[in-house]
C-alpha cells in the first residue's frame, strides 16, 4: 500500500460520508429529530476532514497544489463548497441548510470520481506561481456561489413555510440576507479570479484578455451576479426573483466549469 492507495481510499470515504450527511439532512427535514441534523452537520465535518486528508496526500504525491486537471479542479471545487457551508453553519448555526448544499457537494464529488485521477506533471503553461492564487480563489468563489444556490433552492421550495413558528428552516429574512452576503463574497473572489487570470495570461500567453471561452464565460458569470447585486441593493429585489437569479448565476458557474471544457475548447483546456 502506498500513498496513492490511501489518497484514493480517503477520497472514496469522503464521498460516502458526504452522501450520508446529505441523507441525514433529508431525514431531519422529512420529520426526523434534531439529532439527525446535528449528526449530519458533524458527518459533513468528518467528510471534510477526510477529504482534506485526501487532498494533502495528493499534494505530497505530486509535490504541488491539486489545481491542474479537471479531476483536481472538481475535487477542490467540492472541498470549497463544503468549506463555505461549514463556515456558515458554525457561524450562523442554521438548521437544515445542509440539505440543500450537501447534494451539490456530492454531485460535484461524483463528477470528480468519474474523471481520470492520474497525476501528470504540470505542462509548461501551468508552471507559474499564479496557478495557486488563480485557481485557489476560483475554488472559494465557486464554493460560495454553490452555497448561495443551495440557499436559493431552499427558499424557492419552502418560502411559504419559512416564517411559520414550527418551521425547521431559517426565517425568510435571514435566508435573504445570508444568500446576498455569500454572493457578494463569491463576487469579490470571482473578481480576483479574473484579475489574477489576466495577469497570468499576460505572462504566459502574451494577451491579458483573449476572449477565450472560459474567460468570456467567467465574464458573463460576473455580469449576471453584478446584475443580481445591483437589483438586490438598489431596487430592494428580494425573495423569489433574487433567488431565481442566484440559481441562474450558479448554472453559469457550472457551465463555465464543466460545459466550456466539453463544448467550447480553448486555451483553458487542461485534461
Amino acid at each position: 500500500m502506498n500513498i496513492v492507495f490511501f489518497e484514493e481510499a480517503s477520497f472514496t470515504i469522503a464521498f460516502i460520508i458526504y452522501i450520508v450527511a446529505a441523507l441525514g439532512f433529508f431525514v431531519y427535514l422529512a420529520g426526523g429529530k434534531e439529532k439527525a441534523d446535528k449528526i449530519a452537520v458533524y458527518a459533513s465535518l468528518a467528510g471534510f476532514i477526510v477529504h482534506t486528508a485526501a487532498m494533502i496526500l495528493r499534494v505530497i504525491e505530486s509535490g504541488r497544489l491539486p489545481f491542474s486537471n479537471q479531476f483536481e479542479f472538481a475535487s477542490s471545487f467540492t472541498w470549497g463548497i463544503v468549506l463555505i457551508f461549514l463556515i456558515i453553519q458554525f457561524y450562523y448555526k442554521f438548521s437544515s441548510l445542509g440539505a440543500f448544499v450537501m447534494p451539490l457537494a456530492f454531485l460535484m464529488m461524483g463528477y470528480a470520481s468519474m474523471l481520470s485521477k492520474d497525476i501528470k506533471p504540470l505542462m509548461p503553461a501551468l508552471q507559474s506561481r499564479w496557478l495557486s492564487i488563480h485557481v485557489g480563489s476560483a475554488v472559494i468563489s465557486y464554493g460560495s456561489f454553490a452555497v448561495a444556490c443551495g440557499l436559493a433552492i431552499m427558499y424557492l421550495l419552502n418560502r411559504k413555510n419559512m416564517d411559520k413558528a414550527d418551521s425547521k428552516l431559517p426565517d425568510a429574512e435571514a435566508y435573504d440576507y445570508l444568500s446576498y452576503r455569500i454572493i457578494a463574497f463569491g463576487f469579490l473572489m470571482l473578481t480576483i479570479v479574473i484579475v489574477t487570470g489576466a495577469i497570468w495570461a499576460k505572462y504566459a500567453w502574451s494577451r491579458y484578455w483573449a476572449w477565450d471561452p472560459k474567460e468570456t464565460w467567467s465574464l458573463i458569470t460576473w455580469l449576471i451576479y453584478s446584475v443580481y447585486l445591483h437589483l438586490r441593493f438598489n431596487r430592494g429585489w428580494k425573495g423569489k426573483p433574487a433567488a431565481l437569479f442566484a440559481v441562474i448565476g450558479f448554472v453559469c458557474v457550472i457551465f463555465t466549469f464543466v460545459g466550456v471544457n466539453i463544448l467550447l475548447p480553448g486555451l483553458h483546456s487542461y485534461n
Partner: protein
Amino acid sequence: MLKRITNFLTSLKFGIILFIIIAVYSIIGTVIPQGMDLQFYLNQYHTFGSLMVFLQFDRVYSSVIYLAIVLVFVINLVGCTLKILPVQLKKMKDYIPTKGKNNENLYENWMDIEDIKSGFTKKGFKVIDTEDGSYAVKHRIGHVGSSVTHLGIVIIILGALIGNMFVKEGYITLAPGEIYEFNEYGFTFKLDDFYLDLREDGSVEQYYSELTVYEDEKEPRSETIWVNNPLNINGMYFYQSNYGWASKMQITCAEGHVHQESIFKENPHVFYDKESLTVLLYGYYPDFSMDIHGNPITLSQNVRNPAYAVVLYNEEGYVNSYIVRPGQPIEYKDIEIKFVDSVLYTGLTYRQDFGYYPVMIGSIILTLGILLSFYFYPKYILISQDEIIPVTRQNVWGFTIKIKRMLKELNKVRGNNQ
C-alpha cells in the same frame, strides 16, 4: 424630452439592460467560431451565414457593434456615477441615518450607555454626540464604494480600448545562430541556443530559448525565455510560444558542387528552378517509426533514429516519395537531393501592449471598490438613553448579529469586573 432621454441613458435600468446585452452578445462569440473566412459561414450556416457575417458575428469582440455597446455602457456608467457621487460625498461628511422598520433596538435594562459607548470606541467606532443623543459610526468611506467600483471599470474599458489601438505584435522563428533585427525599436538579438527539457516519459517539461540582446549604446546581455517567463525589452514582451525542426537541404550535381542550399522551417516546399522541381518535406522524424497504417511517425523528440519523408513533384505532377536518412542522397536526373541535418528552432510571439497598465490600475480600483461596497460599508449605531439601534443600508441583518455579539461580549467583561 432631452432631459428624459439623458435620464434614461444614465439610469440603472438602462445599465442593467446593457449588462444583459453585453452578456448575450458575448455568448454568441463563444458559440460561433470566430475569425474564419466568409465561405466557412456560408457552408456552415447556409442562408443565415451572410446575415451572420453582416452582423459581424464572425468577429464579435472586435466588431463595431460590440464597440458601440461598450461605449454606450461607459456613458451610462459615467452618467450613473456622476448622478450619485455628490450625494455619496455629502453622506461621507455628515450623514446620520434614521431608523427604519428593519432596524432592531438592542437595548436591554442592564446596559450602561456610557460603558457601551466606550466599548464601541474600542471596536473602532467613532462615537459622536448630537442634540438628540449620540451615534457611533464606522467605515464612512464606504459611501463611495459603488463610485470607486465604477471608476475602476471605466479605467479598465478605456485602457483596453486605447491600448488595443497601439498594440504591436508578431511572430518570429529563429534557429540557433540566427539574428533578428528590430531596428524600429533599437535592438537586435541572436538566438544562441534553443532546447527542450524532456521528462522520462518523453513529454516536455519546459522550452528554453537562450538569446543575446544587443541594444543601442548598451553592453550585449544574455537572456533566457521560457513559458511563463517572457523577456521584456522596453515594454516589448517576447514569449516562448512554439518550436519545430529546421532542416537543411542541399541540391548537388554529380560532381558534388552545391547548387542550392535551403532551410525548411515552416514552409514545407522548396522550388528548384533549373529542373522545375518542387521538393516537399512531408516531415522530419527524429525518432522515426511507422504506425499500423504505414504512416511515418516520431516516437519522441529525441534524435535517436532520424529520418525525412520527402515528396518530389515536377511539371507533370507527382514523381515519387522517399524516406531518407540524414545525408542519404535522393537521385533525380543528374542531381542529388539530400537532407544534411536538422536543428530545433524556436517560435517566439512578441507583443507590446501598454493598455495592460491602465487595465491593472483599473482592476485594483475595482477590487477596492467592491471591498468598500461589501465589507467597509458605512455602519451606524444610533444611541440614546434606552436605544441601541444598528443601522446600515447594506446588511442590516449581519450587522445586527455582529452588534448583538459585541454587546454580549461587553456584558461578559462587565460581569468579570464586578
